[in-house]
């Protein structure tokens, strides 16, 4: 086993904790980042020689902090900077044990502050994601740029703008209070969800650079959950990401085109992620405090539990969508429920269910996709073809269009 890879994992894992603590001391993102980088460099040269420290994060905080204090003192001598105003909590620098204990008690707030800074409500979602990936996950600007299919300089600009906005907003460095915490938590969760979907929606050539975004999102979700272990919606969010990502090995064919859920080779699903997702849902349900992430995760759970597509508990899916219709009514929710109804009662009942939605969903690709499929099942081939034509016209991606074309081909084969 490679000893060096342990060190990489340790540095990467310690990042949110260490950066959060350094941010608390120095109140500046760039200073904290520089301190962390310096501490990592020293770790890479010392740890292979001296062996790993018992508490890698504490070691990195200690080294990073002292390095920066030295730098600030040196600079203040040269530039007459008021050093004391830049520092906080320096009395304990000669007592590493005390410092370590203080750092542990601050851990939760330090990491939370870091997450809240990245997910500041003044920032557009794209900037929140870029900042979170750069600061909390520690991805390089080049890596983030590649994942979002933009140039490095464009991503650099996005991050700089985000940092400036955060500084302008004068983010308080005190511990976030309880009411603000609840509100900001939603923003962090939403960012993580968006980040995941950036990775999950990838297909074709972009897959190999985008799928890792799913893994970063899961890592952030797990981090958030460790800070709020009793929050059912965060359990739901984490479970949702795990259950969806579990399907990734089966979602793409040899050409990196999407394979639909009903056609996936389920033996390729990641059973460990499914087990973790289902375990989190078991815990969430006990709180009897349902919310949108838990609902989506519950739906994903039904599919995860089916050994084969034919084994899917469509009655349960119907029941869950009925709840969702009451919680967050929308034509898309009813459309999705109709898919379950089609499986349970047949295409005629499903068509009847979606007819009233025609007005609201006249621009929605999936509406015509399922309508065409159900009409075809009923032998109403001319109407089916008409629906598929509408669907192709509304397709957003090449993958969606080719999926409908496949339906059309099947249809035409029947007609002949």
């Amino acid at each position, binding site marked *: *086993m*490679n000893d060096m*890879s*342990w060190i990489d*994992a*340790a540095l*990467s*894992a*310690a990042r949110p*904790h260490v950066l959060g603590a350094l941010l608390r001391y120095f109140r500046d993102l760039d200073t904290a980042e520089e301190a962390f980088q310096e501490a990592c460099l020293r770790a890479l040269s010392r740890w292979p020689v001296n062996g790993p420290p018992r508490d*890698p994060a504490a070691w990195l905080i200690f080294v990073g902090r002292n390095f920066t204090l030295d730098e600030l003192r040196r600079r203040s001598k040269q530039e007459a900077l008021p050093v004391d105003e830049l520092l906080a909590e320096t009395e304990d620098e000669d007592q590493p044990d005390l410092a370590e204990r203080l750092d542990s008690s601050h851990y939760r707030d330090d990491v939370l502050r870091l997450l809240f800074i990245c997910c500041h409500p003044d920032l557009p979602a794209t900037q929140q994601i870029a900042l979170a990936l750069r600061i909390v996950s520690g991805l390089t600007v080049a890596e983030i740029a590649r994942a979002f299919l933009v140039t490095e300089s464009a991503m650099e600009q996005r991050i700089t703008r985000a940092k400036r906005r955060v500084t302008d907003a004068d983010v308080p460095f005190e511990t976030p209070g309880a009411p603000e915490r609840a509100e900001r938590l939603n923003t962090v969760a939403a960012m993580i969800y968006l980040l995941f979907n950036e990775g999950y929606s990838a297909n074709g050539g972009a897959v190999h650079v985008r799928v890792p975004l799913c893994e970063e999102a899961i*890592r952030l979700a*797990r981090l958030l*959950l*460790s800070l709020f*272990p*009793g929050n059912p919606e965060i359990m739901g969010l*984490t479970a949702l990401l795990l259950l969806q990502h579990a399907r990734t090995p089966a979602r793409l064919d040899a050409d990196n085109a999407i394979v639909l859920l009903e056609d996936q080779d389920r033996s390729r699903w990641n059973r*460990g992620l499914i*087990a*973790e997702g289902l*375990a*989190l849902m*078991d*815990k969430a349900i*006990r709180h009897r405090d349902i919310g949108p992430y838990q609902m989506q995760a519950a739906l994903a759970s039904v599919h995860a539990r089916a050994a084969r597509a034919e084994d899917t508990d469509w009655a349960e899916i119907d029941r869950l969508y009925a709840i969702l219709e009451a919680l967050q009514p929308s034509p898309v929710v009813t459309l999705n429920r109709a898919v379950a109804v089609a499986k349970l009662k047949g295409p005629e009942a499903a068509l009847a269910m979606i007819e009233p939605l025609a007005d609201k969903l006249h621009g929605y690709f999936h509406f015509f996709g399922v309508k065409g499929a159900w009409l075809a099942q009923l032998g109403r081939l001319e109407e089916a073809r008409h629906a598929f034509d509408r669907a192709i016209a509304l397709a957003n991606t090449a993958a969606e269009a080719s999926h409908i074309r496949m339906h059309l081909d099947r249809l035409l084969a029947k007609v002949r």
Partner: protein
Amino acid sequence: MLYSILCYNVESIVGAWSREHDDAVMKAHFDIQEKLVQAGKLGPVVRLLPTTTATTVRAADKPVVIDGPFAETKEQLLGFYVVDCDTLDEVIDLAKQLSIPPGAMEIRPIRYFSQANLPATRLREDR
């Protein structure tokens, strides 16, 4: 003599292992398990799911159920059950019955389990 080996580590680091590193570690463990099986020395082997999946039951007249792992350091790990239950509620019920003040029982769902091949110890000494 029977022993239990209780594996402790820093979860965030283990979680940050690359897939290759994780596979390599598991392979090394499996190789050791193979040898032990051949020598008739291996009992149940368990790799747990992350602590974010844990639920803790604190002993009291009315036991308290808390989300999360058992994190206190005053108490020590004294035992280790592996049970087969249909629901989390069923396990929590069991844990409440088994818990003795001033202790706590941490329930953790199991990620990987290997069937024991050792005979059970006697529950009581013969008189």
